[in-house]
């Protein structure tokens, strides 16, 4: 937190310029559906929202743009009654209101699809939705869920327990819950990150239909082309301040991005790598039965990753990504050693530690609890995976000095904002922790690097940094495998691409031969006609 706030400090230089820009905002239209004026919220040592104005008209799709830490979440929480502003006023349909609780927000007609899903794992879909709406979990509600989920193409089984569902399915619960409340203002916090292109299109159709029905939508995202395609107005936040309002159609993605990020974009260009002939990671007929009821069985996965290339694996959540990751990392051993060959050596039955020692480093999807121990310090977390490949011990005991130095190196190289190496992993923001755990593996100089959802919930700046370091690795001759649901990401960085559907891997294609639409079909289990196969 502290680190972020010092970063904001530099931005105050351009205050006057920003104020001049925001002054252009016209307040002339008849009372907007919601008007937030001068919203200010301070945390100890950090001004999260600094006199922000936000106006959303009924029937419009309004984008709220900003990087992580820009103050979007705080602003939305104030609007939804989860936080109280220190200063400022909120008007709802022209009347001054105080939104003291989410219940009150819901009563007004405000619904929120959370970025981090507020779901109860042990409860069923039906019960979760009932809790979110403060109604009884009865058959009537069940029918409504089925009806709404069918109408908007968001299939859901009301009786499933949430812990058995994938990330994408969980998001559907949130969306369906909001739609059931018949909202006047629907707040969507990064809703498309787990959807296929087709599903995104379907969602946009839904959102446009809702907005035609008069519902205002506050759409929070950092995917600029989505905002250009969908939103009619945009409010851009940076460092807790409103820096501009814009009409997305009239802006280029580049101009929006520079408003959002301040300085010029450092997004990496697409680059192609010339892979060497040497196959570093090879899966042949790798299969794994589902160990638990809702796991996805892997069926005959065949995949070669060569030195110096990035291979991307697309797929909607819950199609075997976690299982594939476990099989590669060694958390789940394969039946026979030959099923996974690591730099020429059969490794299918090796332990994760042995695979790391051989040069295979992995970053699983779940940042907190899987890739890191939330309550442990960064130094300790660094030691946990890096001790296989780096010297972190003195006469067999953990060397605090050596592991601390390694953690410091990661923090410096990957520009992790934190209060030093003693900080607990859980206290880092999502983007910073992601930079740390990706950096931790990259600093070990692996020959094979496998990463799942490298930029999930990470802001554009951090995502660009992570993408760049993946490209650097490939250029230096590592074999890189990226499992992701973010197609833009895969299209940008991967040399070859495949899709995982229901535990089966499609053929692998050269990325430039595949369109996003075709990739979407692959994700749905179809195959592309022979002409584009690589």
């Amino acid at each position, binding site marked *: 937190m502290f680190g972020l706030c010092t970063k904001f400090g530099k931005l105050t230089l351009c205050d006057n310029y920003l104020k001049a820009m925001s002054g252009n905002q016209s307040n002339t239209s008849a009372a907007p559906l919601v008007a937030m004026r001068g919203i200010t919220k301070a945390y100890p040592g950090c001004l999260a929202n600094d006199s922000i104005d936000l106006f959303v008209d009924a029937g419009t799709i309004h984008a709220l743009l900003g990087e992580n830490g820009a103050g979007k979440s705080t602003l939305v929480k104030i609007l939804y*009654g*989860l936080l109280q502003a220190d200063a400022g006023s909120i008007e709802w349909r022209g009347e001054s209101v105080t939104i003291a*609780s*989410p*219940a009150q927000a819901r009563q007004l007609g405000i619904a929120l699809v*959370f970025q981090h899903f*507020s*779901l*109860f*794992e*042990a*409860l069923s879909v039906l*019960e979760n939705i*009932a*809790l*979110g709406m*403060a*109604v*009884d*979990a009865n058959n009537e509600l069940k029918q409504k869920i089925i009806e709404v989920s069918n109408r908007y193409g968001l299939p859901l089984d009301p009786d499933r*327990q949430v*812990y058995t569902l994938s990330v994408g399915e969980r998001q559907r619960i949130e969306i369906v819950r909001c739609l059931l409340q018949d909202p006047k203002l629907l707040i969507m916090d990064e809703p498309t990150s787990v959807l296929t292109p087709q599903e995104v299109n379907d969602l946009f159709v839904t959102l446009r239909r809702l907005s035609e029905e008069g519902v205002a939508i506050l759409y929070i995202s950092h995917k600029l082309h989505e905002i250009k395609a969908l939103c009619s107005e945009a409010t851009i936040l940076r460092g807790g301040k409103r820096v501009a309002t814009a009409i997305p159609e009239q802006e280029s993605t580049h101009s929006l991005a520079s408003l959002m990020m301040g300085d010029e974009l450092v997004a990496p260009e697409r680059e192609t790598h010339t892979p060497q002939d040497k196959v570093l990671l090879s899966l042949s007929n790798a299969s794994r039965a589902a160990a*638990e*009821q809702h796991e996805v069985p892997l069926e005959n996965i065949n995949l070669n990753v060569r030195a110096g290339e990035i291979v991307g694996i697309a797929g909607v959540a819950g199609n075997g990504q976690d299982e594939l990751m476990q099989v590669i990392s060694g958390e789940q051993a394969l039946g026979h050693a030959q099923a996974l060959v690591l730099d020429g050596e059969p490794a299918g039955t090796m332990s994760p530690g042995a695979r790391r020692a051989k040069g295979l480093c992995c970053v699983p999807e779940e940042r907190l609890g899987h890739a890191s121990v939330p309550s442990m310090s960064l130094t300790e977390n660094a030691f946990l995976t890096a001790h296989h490949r780096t010297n972190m011990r003195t006469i067999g005991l953990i060397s605090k000095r050596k592991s601390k130095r390694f953690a410091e190196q990661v923090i410096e190289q990957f520009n992790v904002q934190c209060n030093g190496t003693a900080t607990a992993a859980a206290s880092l923001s999502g983007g910073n922790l992601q930079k740390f755990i990706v950096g931790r593996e990259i600093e070990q100089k692996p020959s094979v690097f496998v990463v799942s959802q490298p930029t999930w919930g990470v802001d554009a700046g951090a995502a660009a940094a992570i993408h760049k370091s993946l490209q650097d690795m490939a250029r230096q001759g590592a074999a890189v495998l990226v499992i992701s649901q973010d197609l833009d990401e895969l299209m940008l960085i991967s040399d070859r691409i495949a899709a995982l559907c229901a535990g089966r891997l499609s053929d692998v294609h050269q990325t430039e031969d595949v369109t996003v639409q075709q990739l979407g079909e692959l994700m749905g289990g179809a195959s592309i006609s022979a002409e584009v196969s690589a």
Partner: protein
Amino acid sequence: MSPESNMFVMIALTIISAATPLVYAAIGELVVEKSGVLNLGVEGMMLAGAVSGFAVAHVSGSAMLGVLAGVFAGMLLALIFAFLTLGLRASQVATGLALTIFGIGLSALMGQALIGIAYEGIPSLNIPYLSDIPVLGPLLFQHDLLVYGSFALVIAVSYFLKYTRAGLIVRAIGDSPEAAHALGYPVLRVRYLATLFGGACAGLSGCYLSMAYAPMWVESMSAGRGWIALALVVFATWQPGRLLFGAYLFGGITILQLHAQAIGINVPSQLMSMLPYVATIIVLVLISRDRGRIRKNAPASIGQAFHPTK
């Protein structure tokens, strides 16, 4: 009545009276744990309930007032626990253990003057005709109200958790207080109420011991039943129906060993006394094989402090 059926009725009655205090204490703790709070002070709250109930019943001559006093005493201790762990965010484990020690000491101090005093016990039901039916009469229609109350309570709690909105909120808070808070549910208030309910049930359980089971006051008379109740909740995977079954299983095993000794079955009594605990361990091992059930029923946030500001 034949001697065999006499023997059977006697054993059945003693099982019921051994199981009833376990049912009360455990069903209360089940609700507490379902809300995400782990109160290890059940034993202490039982003893406070036992001594208060006995004292008030003795002085006033009213079993009703005694039971009320016992319930109140259990709630008072639970309130201390709730204030420390929910209000001040002290460690639930340490505070619960301290509460047990406190309850043992406090009840011993309060009960000094009560030792050796006789009390006729809570009157049993006596329904004309029904109570006189051989075998079934004594089995079904000759208990005190607390026995029937324990069954009613289990059914009520089961219904509450499964079918009411309030019960759903309790389960939700036990699963993820953060998510519940984000939706605007009053996490701490619900946890306070659940903890108080647990205290009331433990107090009631204590009352049953000192006013119906014994009936008299002896120092530390709960003799570890509070701990068995805690184990029962896990044993039952937080399901009221299984909890009832478990309480009777435990009560049964406890009683059978006494009867076995009385009949003269030659097994060392220490071995027999181990039976309930051996059974717990075996069942816990079997239960933990079914991860789905645990995932579905165990409150995920149990024992963790919740900071509403975060």
